[in-house]
């Protein structure tokens, strides 16, 4: 789904992409598969430069639990390769199909595994980028521990491609947990929901995921465990949830539960707002969701929440979230993007990395 009026190009190599970026005179938007294009600012670029042609898995060093991926590699394809070695890249954002590694990093997208393994910023150990003038530069490396030079990969994480095009990332991998089990606590009270989530986030257990959910008057706390003793840990969590006043159960075949959590982070037609909050905001945000008929999913231990409103008054929901650090992701076609919070340092960075203001 190309933006109206934009020329689309998908160079077949990093060198060609860098050259095309250098040669571009007008505005350029860098994208992967384009699955999150709706998150971008409204202004239409003259050129859409896609990394979809950069789709090589350059290295998979199973023994070192690292990999080097070109930016256009679809995450799902990389995961298939890693899975054969009993490994994973611990990133599990919602993916309706084709989302690329570079796009996920540039958009700083993540899923339930963020609770245990961190987000793109924590898993990317090296990066190669093309700057607006065509300079190809790298930072970091392909070892998991490295403090040489500035960590420019962080700067490009969440940048939406406005500082340059991500060409390649080196990532840390993790072993796939041999088994998983999830303790689920049900409640109709936002207060008990928050209490149950806090009990698990402060427990001496090692969660693979700790999520909360609120929709249509009902809430759930989900504590997922992975490992050789996943079930034993889930049973402990089940008891803790029960003690906190929730109706608790243990779910062994738990993948559908987590898939539903991921789906709460997208709305094909409506609004999704990501709120960077605190653990203690859960009760209040469940109340906000309830008032607006929205669905709330969140990483309860991290204070990271998504409010999804498929059909309803999107601006009313946004204004109710005014005090929070927030970012609109999916949004209705007729809704303009809120201007980002101003930051003098970001403006200075933009001047240094993209003085011609090409990248939008």
């Amino acid at each position: 789904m190309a933006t109206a009026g934009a020329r689309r190009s998908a160079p077949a190599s990093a060198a060609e992409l860098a050259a095309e970026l250098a040669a571009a005179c007008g505005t350029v938007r860098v994208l992967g598969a384009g699955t999150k294009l709706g998150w971008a600012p409204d202004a239409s670029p003259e050129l859409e430069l896609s990394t979809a042609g950069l789709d090589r898995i350059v290295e998979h060093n199973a023994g070192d639990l690292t990999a080097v991926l070109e930016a256009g590699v679809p995450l799902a394809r990389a995961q298939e390769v890693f899975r054969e070695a009993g490994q994973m890249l611990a990133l599990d954002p919602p993916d309706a199909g084709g989302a690329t590694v570079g796009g996920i990093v540039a958009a700083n997208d993540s899923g339930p595994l963020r609770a245990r393994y961190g987000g793109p910023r924590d898993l990317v150990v090296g990066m190669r980028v093309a700057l607006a003038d065509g300079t190809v530069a790298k930072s970091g490396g392909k070892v998991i521990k490295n403090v040489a030079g500035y960590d420019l990969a962080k700067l490009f994480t969440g940048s939406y491609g406005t500082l340059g095009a991500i060409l390649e990332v080196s990532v840390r991998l993790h072993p796939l947990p041999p088994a998983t089990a999830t303790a689920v606590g049900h409640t109709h009270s936002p207060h008990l929901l928050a209490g149950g989530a806090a009990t698990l986030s402060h427990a001496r257990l090692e969660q693979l995921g700790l999520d909360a959910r609120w929709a249509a008057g009902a809430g759930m706390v989900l504590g997922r465990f992975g490992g050789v003793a996943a079930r034993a840990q889930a049973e402990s969590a089940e008891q803790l949830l029960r003690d906190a006043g929730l109706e608790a159960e243990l779910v062994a075949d738990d993948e559908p539960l987590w898939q539903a959590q991921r789906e709460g982070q997208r709305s094909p037609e409506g609004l999704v707002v990501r709120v960077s909050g605190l653990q203690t905001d859960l009760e209040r945000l469940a109340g906000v969701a309830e008032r607006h008929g929205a669905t709330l999913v969140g990483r309860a231990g991290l204070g990271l929440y998504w409010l999804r409103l498929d059909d309803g008054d999107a601006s009313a929901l946004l204004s109710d979230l005014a005090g929070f650090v927030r970012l609109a992701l999916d949004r209705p076609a007729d809704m303009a993007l809120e201007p980002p919070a101003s930051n003098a340092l970001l403006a200075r960075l933009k001047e240094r990395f993209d003085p011609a203001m090409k990248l939008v």
Partner: protein
Amino acid sequence: MDGGEVELLAELSAAVGAEHVVTHEHQLRTYESDGLLQYAVTPRAVVLPGSTVEVQAVVRACHRAGVPWVARGAGSGLSGGATPVSEGVLISLTRMRSIIEVDLANQRVVVEPGVTNIAVSQAVGPDHFYPPDPSSQIVCTIGGNVAENSGGAHCFKYGFTTNYVTGLELVLPDGELVQLGGKEIDHPGPDLLGAFVGSEGTLAVATKIWLRIVPKPEAVRTLVAFFGSPIQAGEVVSEIVSGGIVPGAIEMMDNLSIRAAEGYTNAGYPTAAGAALVVELDGSSAECETRFEQVVGICERAGADSIRVAADEAERELIWRARKAAFAAMGRIAPNYYVQDSVIPRTRLAEVLGRIEQLGREFDLKIANVFHAGDGNLHPLVCYDGSVPGEAERAEECAGLIVRACVDAGGSITGEHGVGVDKKRYMPEMFSDADLGAFQRLRCAFDPDQRANPGKVMPTPRLCGEVPGPYRQHPLEQAGLAERF
């Protein structure tokens, strides 16, 4: 002392109080080095601000006077990153040591930069802890940890400082105050916070730091296994990790380090052992027990000469004592040593160790090896006697070739000590001119006059230059007579 200098000193005194400005030669000498004593420079003055406002006043005074400055914490770094500049001001942040807020409900702590690393874990115990644990944790400061992106023995599982900093208040080199992040994670936009961590004091001064803390693990199990050689122990490390086990810590020492450490600590390590492997697992009791049995099994099958399992906390501390004393004990082997901090992909261990052994023979120098084995971070200690003419230079040359061998194997010049002054000459081994140019763009966005910790990280000085104006079409392009393709 010229008029400008008198004026600067008066401004610094006005900013922090005359009692917190050090200008006497013998007192200044206290600050001439950090933990890497090879580098010593006496600064023009040392100031000890007590608040963010005072840091701003100091930095503004330096900005007006065009004087460079170096901010430092405890000075325990090992790369010369806090070495003063002779014409500059040293800003010591050790008076700013308040723990501003402990928010256990949200698992956050807010501290001033001079708070020591250990003080954070102490403030949030007994149910929580702050995972990054550099071996200097009793003295090193959080501000210094942020500058260096410090790790520690447990970082293979728990990560580094960068994985735990959620917010920073910064005084930029022009004195402006900015806040990046806060208690919340994932603020929208480029992750400037992440880019700042590990910038070695070259971008700004952090005056307030928000940290994430985590619940203490339910159980901890520790063992030390002894093997015939580091290569044999290295295979055990690979088998543990590829089996899906993520130890809290996994550390290795070779025979020379074992002998030095044992002579110093009497921890009971057999001095004939070729390698000692310390493995620590933590987590939930159920998970930990099963995995620990697997680790014991792997060590036995791999032919460990002996395995010692810590039965209690006292035995655990004894096992760790030998490992933690390895650097300090090196004095028993040689009067001086040159320590490296290179990283290699773990699977290349045998090959790189072979190369290090070969270099030791070629240069006729003893080289001891202590590793963070899980993440491939080597600490080869090249031993020498500084009183023998030429030996220090030989050791340095040998250490440089070790660094090159690690980079050639796909590794890094530094895993946790930082580049500082000491390793900046190796930067071109890892980074091209274009890469360094990109680093410089970040530097210049924060510090266009390059007054913050100059002479560190980058191998050669570079200017920032003016920011070019917005792109304009050349008249020939406008006229359609030329294009840039």
